[in-house]
């Protein structure tokens, strides 16, 4: 059995792309130079994913400045506001500010996706709960109304994903972070359920909810109610021994710590994966970093990808 790996978010940029992005900001490089830089990074990333068994390929959100920017730049009724800390990281995002009814046909997403025509790929999008609680709500006055509105714009976005998009992963760090700190109320879960009901209606691809920055065991029973194909688990924050069965759902095992440069050994990753799998019982699963690899320099991120790939081969061997 081939065990795939997967990327879960924003990928670090090469020093060449960082340089040309800076130059572009300072009007020292034109748009075509920036495009060439992005294309070169994407080609490198795609090649590595193919070589290391990361499938379906993800684009590393190389065009995205943060998880919400394509939306705050394109959705009517929303703009981007102040720099805000991205959870407990030395990384910041422009907070989306919701000022009016949100409207979009979702077609803008094609300007941000990178994929080879016809080749299967995975799209990574913000989850509606994380989006809603990360935004400044000046219009809807409450999660109960804001979250469904955001789910609508995400659903419109998903309707614009090409047929080759085999999987859509919704990143929900806020679910994990808030649940682990007892900040998720029953009413929030109701809003989450309602939001995903809207969102999943328009998706033909497999849908995953990836959770990170918190202990999965703290919200496993609630999140299992979501009718998605699988869940991502941050195993740097979760004690694998505390996990329970995922009732046949797929799993994205967030094993490699994307926030520390210490590269895990393949044996360590494989052993931790085996422990988690024994508890969750998933037959189909992916080995992954716990979150976006953008918290690491590219060279370390690539070493972590290689370690994950080797761990997958160890697990394959052990499973016969």
């Amino acid at each position: 059995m081939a065990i795939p790996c997967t990327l879960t978010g924003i990928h670090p940029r090469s020093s060449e792309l960082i340089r040309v992005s800076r130059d572009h900001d300072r009007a020292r490089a034109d748009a075509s130079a920036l495009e060439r830089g992005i294309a070169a990074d994407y080609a490198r990333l795609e090649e590595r994913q193919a070589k290391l068994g990361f499938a379906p390929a993800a684009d590393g959100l190389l065009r995205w400045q943060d998880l919400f920017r394509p939306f705050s730049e394109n959705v009517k009724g929303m703009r981007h506001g102040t720099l805000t800390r991205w959870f407990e990281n030395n990384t910041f995002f422009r907070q989306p500010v919701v000022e009016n009814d949100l409207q979009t046909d979702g077609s803008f997403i094609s300007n941000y996706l990178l994929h080879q025509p016809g080749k299967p790929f995975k799209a990574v999008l913000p989850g509606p709960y994380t989006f809603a609680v990360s935004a400044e709500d000046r219009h809807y006055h409450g999660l109960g109304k804001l979250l469904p509105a955001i789910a609508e714009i995400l659903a419109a976005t998903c309707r614009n994903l090409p047929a080759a998009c085999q999987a859509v992963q919704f990143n929900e760090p806020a679910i994990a972070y808030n649940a682990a700190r007892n900040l998720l109320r029953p009413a929030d879960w109701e809003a989450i359920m309602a939001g995903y009901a809207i969102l999943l209606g328009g998706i033909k691809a497999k849908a995953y909810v990836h959770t990170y920055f918190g202990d999965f065991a703290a919200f496993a029973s609630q999140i299992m109610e979501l009718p998605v194909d699988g869940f991502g688990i941050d195993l740097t924050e979760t004690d694998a021994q505390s996990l329970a069965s995922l009732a046949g759902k797929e799993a994205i095992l967030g094993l490699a710590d994307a926030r520390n440069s210490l590269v895990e050994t393949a044996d360590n990753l494989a052993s931790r994966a085996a422990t988690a799998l024994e508890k969750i019982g998933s037959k189909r699963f992916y080995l992954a970093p716990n979150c976006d690899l953008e918290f690491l320099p590219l060279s370390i991120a690539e070493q972590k990808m290689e370690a994950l790939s080797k761990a997958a081969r160890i697990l394959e061997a052990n499973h016969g």
Partner: protein
Amino acid sequence: MAEKLFPAQEIGSLAKPVWHVKKIANRATSPHDLQLLCQWAGQLAVSNETVSETETLLAKQQLTAVDKERMRQLSSIFVVKLFEQAGLDYVYNGEQTRVEMYQHPITYTDGFKFYGEVRSFDNKYYLKAACVGQPQLQKPYHTDEFNFVKTISTKQLKVPITGAYTLADWSFNEHYLKRQPHGNYRQASREAKRELALDLARDIIRPNIKSLVEAGCSFIQIDEPAAATHPDDVPLIVESFNESVKGIGCRFSVHICFSDYQRMFPHIMEMKKCGMFTWEFANRDDNNRAGYKILELFREHNYPGQIGLGVFNVHNDEIEQPELIRDRILFAAKTLGDPAKVYVNPDCGLRTRTWEVAFAKLQNMVAGAALARQEFG
């Protein structure tokens, strides 16, 4: 003599002039760069000798290490003049002699290895190092800089230095994590971080502070922009600050920015030697002074010290009008219940703004402080 109300202070970095950046990187300067140099020299009344020496260095084909050090000093002269001309009461050199607030101290600390750039936001990146061995100070890395700056300014000096907690938080931690017993990864990471922060406080920051004080420094700002990043770490921030300043008599302020300040209370009241908290507020402000309401917590906790009030946003080019600055100052003075507790400064370092914008913002800050003083006769 009692200090005037609302003294104005710098808070750290200022962009390096393009002639400095290019020449340090051994790139050629353009006629436009030289034109800017002369323009600012005129505006800031920089001496002919300084301008001439700068031009001589810029004309050299390749700079030696000594030349580069002198280039940084010449750049410092311009910046000190800029701060003085803007009307600040407390100045420094805009960190012209440092690569950047994280990279500079780490460069002088053994036990770290740089792997590459990591994104801060948008297209802004910083070089992030990993702690791969026991941190050891090569030599105090701010004293030469301070000794030079005190020869070029007649104003009071405040030296910004990066704090131990931030250095620990912004570094990857391999050395201490490897030493932890296997088991709960999260717990091991936390303990590894605590050990790193406290070792940095004792072995890196404290010797630097001691050396500065011995050189005559009387006001040090410890920059902890990573504070409140991890709510559970606030006690560690307090512990690492106290460890850093242990046994040293000096005036200390602590700069924190872009954080959830609520989480800092009440723990920061245990930073007994911190006489001033210098925070970013303007970035989060609105017409109702929402950005400054957090000051109520200082009053509630009977904080006896001063507040370095961030009165303008450092992430846009809007030149805030003096009246807006005045209103922010007056709101803070009223909230704290004592105008003498308020110092004014930018929200954070100005390195992302042009000199033109920074200078205009600083001038209006000083003008706004003057307007606020009028309210108190």
